[in-house]
């Protein structure tokens, strides 16, 4: 089972990387989201999941019996939320970029990337 999960994590990450290599910004965004999912699975594989019992202490007991690795779960939980936040932020940036440039092509990111013309006055810092 571990090998299978390892395979899945690796495959998801590979597919995600392929998407990130694309030139469409939304695909890149989705690829990054997928990548974080893949890493989460990886963290999951890193934890001990030999038991299917949730890490919830049964009412009346003092300590956790046989259960899945709670620490790994806590880490993944954090990672999920962070990945979510990043995905959403990136989505927002992509939308803003689309609004201002009208392009989703990563190659157009650098329209203004050439050494800028000294004549172009940038607005002053207020």
């Amino acid at each position, binding site marked *: 089972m571990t090998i299978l999960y390892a395979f899945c994590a690796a495959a998801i990450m590979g597919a995600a990387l392929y998407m990130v290599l694309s030139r469409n910004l939304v695909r890149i965004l989705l690829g990054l989201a997928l990548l974080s999912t893949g890493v989460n699975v990886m963290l999951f594989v890193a934890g001990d999941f030999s038991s*299917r*019992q*949730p890490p*919830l202490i049964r009412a009346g007991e003092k300590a956790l019996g046989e259960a899945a690795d709670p620490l790994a779960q806590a880490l993944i939980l954090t990672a999920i939320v962070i990945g979510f936040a990043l995905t959403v932020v990136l989505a927002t940036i992509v939308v803003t970029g689309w609004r201002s440039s009208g392009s989703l092509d990563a190659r157009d990111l650098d329209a203004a990337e050439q050494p800028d013309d000294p004549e172009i006055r940038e607005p002053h810092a207020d």
Partner: protein
Amino acid sequence: MSDIVDWLELPLVAALALAGWRMVRGPSAADRFVAFDMLTAVAVGFAALTAVATGRAAFLDVALGLALVNFVATAAFALFLERNDGAGE
């Protein structure tokens, strides 16, 4: 109890696969979202079965959570669809 759960999981996986297939294949966006609904139902089923397998009612919380959140996703999908004529292939 977990013996039957092991067996019942299989058709559920099949259902998951079928829903997933429809979700990916489309052909129209509406098809995908219909499949998404299906996916939710299957996931709730999984939650129930896991609860039985482990003997922990905690997994029913997951089912509840799923039911709660998924409706919102469906609604978002629907609104998306109304807005985006000819979405899909």
